[in-house]
């Protein structure tokens, strides 16, 4: 095992996969001289395989789809979630549906990496989390890793997958550290990770909120409250079994994500539980998420909107107070 930054784990996955398979290319805005996830790739793989694009998200994502249909395996970077609406036409109408519409004739091995998220004073145009949109669209897979280990292993799987994958990174995770194996590994889609076992309450959290949930779990353990923290890691496919098994054990669920609450991915998870594990629930399902408000620039205001540890603790305690 070795310690690595989240962003360097992405870089390693890209590098190792590009070494393995020549049909993989990387493209996006300002990726050539980037000092982040795509750092140094152009030096190793050259300008043909590491391409800066014009500011044409619809055009170059569309081009990536066309390339993916014809033997190339593009890994595209979209700088932040707020730009996804610009290219969503090609993602939704083309990449996601093409194989189906054409009766299985084509495949679209395309990864769209998006380092999104709030909490960086990005204000109204650089703070979004739109994974719910893409979870709603059949034909896509949606991945949302919270640790260096997960991000490397899942990015490898995403790149090897023959379907379009929305790969949600988080700006605030880029400088977090974690252990990964020295050797090659990958993580299958559809396997949630129990980040911490517990028996009183289940917290289901994604992305940066996994870190917050784990910190809450530690705080609460000192008060004798045993929290289980589950990170679904992939939203499509979703590992319902791990989630439901945990509900069976605890009977109490708090779902935490940074995206807006209304119609967020927490809604889907809550609905699944209310539909498929109703009998095991002994309290309402709580969601802790961003208030349904745009993100303001001023940090004190932004802090008011994003879910935080106190909100999570409050939700857990409310559940425990029941019965």
């Amino acid at each position, binding site marked *: 095992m070795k310690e690595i930054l989240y962003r360097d784990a992405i870089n390693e996955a890209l590098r190792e996969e590009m070494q393995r398979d020549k049909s993989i290319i990387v493209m996006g805005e300002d990726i050539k001289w980037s000092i982040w996830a795509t750092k140094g790739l152009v030096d190793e793989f050259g300008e043909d395989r590491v391409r800066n694009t014009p500011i044409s998200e619809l055009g170059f994502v569309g081009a990536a789809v*066309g*390339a993916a249909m014809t033997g190339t395996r593009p890994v595209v970077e979209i700088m932040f979630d707020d730009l996804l609406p610009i290219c969503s036409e090609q993602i939704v*109408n083309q990449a996601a549906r093409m194989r*189906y519409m054409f*009766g299985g004739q084509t495949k679209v091995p395309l990864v769209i990496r998006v380092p999104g998220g709030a909490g960086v004073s990005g204000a109204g145009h650089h703070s979004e989390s739109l994974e719910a949109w893409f979870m709603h669209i059949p034909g896509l897979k949606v991945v949302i890793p919270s640790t260096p280990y997960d991000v490397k292993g899942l990015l490898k799987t995403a790149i090897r997958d023959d379907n379009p994958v929305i790969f949600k990174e988080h700006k605030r995770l880029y400088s977090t550290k974690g252990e990964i194996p020295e050797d090659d590994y990958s993580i299958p889609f559809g396997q949630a990770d129990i980040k911490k076992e517990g028996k009183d309450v289940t917290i289901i959290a994604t992305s940066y909120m996994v870190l917050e949930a784990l910190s809450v779990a530690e705080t609460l353990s000192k008060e004798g409250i045993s929290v289980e923290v589950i990170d679904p890691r992939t939203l499509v496919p979703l590992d319902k079994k791990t989630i439901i098994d945990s509900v069976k054990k605890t009977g109490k669920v708090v779902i935490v994500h940074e995206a807006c609450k209304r119609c967020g991915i927490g809604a889907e998870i809550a609905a699944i539980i209310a539909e498929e594990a109703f009998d095991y629930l002994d309290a309402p399902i709580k969601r802790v998420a961003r208030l349904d408000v745009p993100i303001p620039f001023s940090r004190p205001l932004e802090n008011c909107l994003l879910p935080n540890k106190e909100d999570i603790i409050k939700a857990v305690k409310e559940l425990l107070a029941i019965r």
Partner: protein
Amino acid sequence: MNLSNEKLIEMYRKMLEIRYFEEKIGELFVLGALAYARGFIHLYVGEEAVAVGVCAGLRKEDYITSTHRGHGHCIAKGVQLNNVMAEILGKQTGCCKGKGGSMHIADVNVGVLGTSGIVGAGIPLATGVGLSIKLKGSEQVCVSFFGDAASNTGAFHEAINLAAVWKLPVVFICENNLYGITVSAAESTSVKDIADRSKGYGIPGVIVDGMDVIAVYEAASEAIKRAREGLGPTLIECKTYRYRGHSVMEQWAQAYRKPEEVEEWKRKDCILKLRTKFIQTNILEEEKICDIEKEVKSRVEEASNFALQSPYPENEEAIKDIYAEVEMSF
């Protein structure tokens, strides 16, 4: 250019195939045999010279991306009539097993990467296909067909700029038939000749008579050659016209254009033009032409019968082909 008589006759045959095919679809619609298809079927009648002239310059391994008005492109590029017809009728024997319908016909074996229900969407795809070709280093090209109204989409602009910057082997074919549904080019497009938009991308822009299959062939062939030689994309604007309504729903009521205008264009008919040339230059005598016409008509009839008699797909097809099997290569 050296167009052999055989090639010319082949092009004539293709134009006829498209013409009769489309007229057949129109008939079937009226008869109610397309009951399921509603209005989302757009006929190519009048514009045959464009698809045929362009595709006559392509090889089997070359690619095209197409539009909502795409039957002609598919036929010209070599998809079997039977499978196109069956697809339009939603049958299991269609090239996409009936899942695509008129607006999503693909046949990757002959390089047809799909008709499309989203105007403009095929243009970026073509740019990406050009990228694959360039990366592979093969000699293929990709042609993207689109309408005049599509040239007002952001997709057009972004895709052509990208293809130009990366010098990709793509040929952009704008079929300017003067209207997008009921909206005239004058009402929606700020420039008279869409070919002029090429100046914004530093690539050649060519205007060609889209009712003349030979002219289209020549212009397209030159652009295709440029593309194969690594000299980058070309924008070709074909001035053409659709004889019928925007979709099969709108066969007769066309309040937005004058009957005289339609008649004027019909006098320039691409099939008539080539037919007259055949006779005048003794390439083919009238009788032979009639034979071809009869033969093509019966091929189309056959396709129609094939499609009508084919079964609908089994219900289980509804949940197949959503994801490709994951192909772990380690």
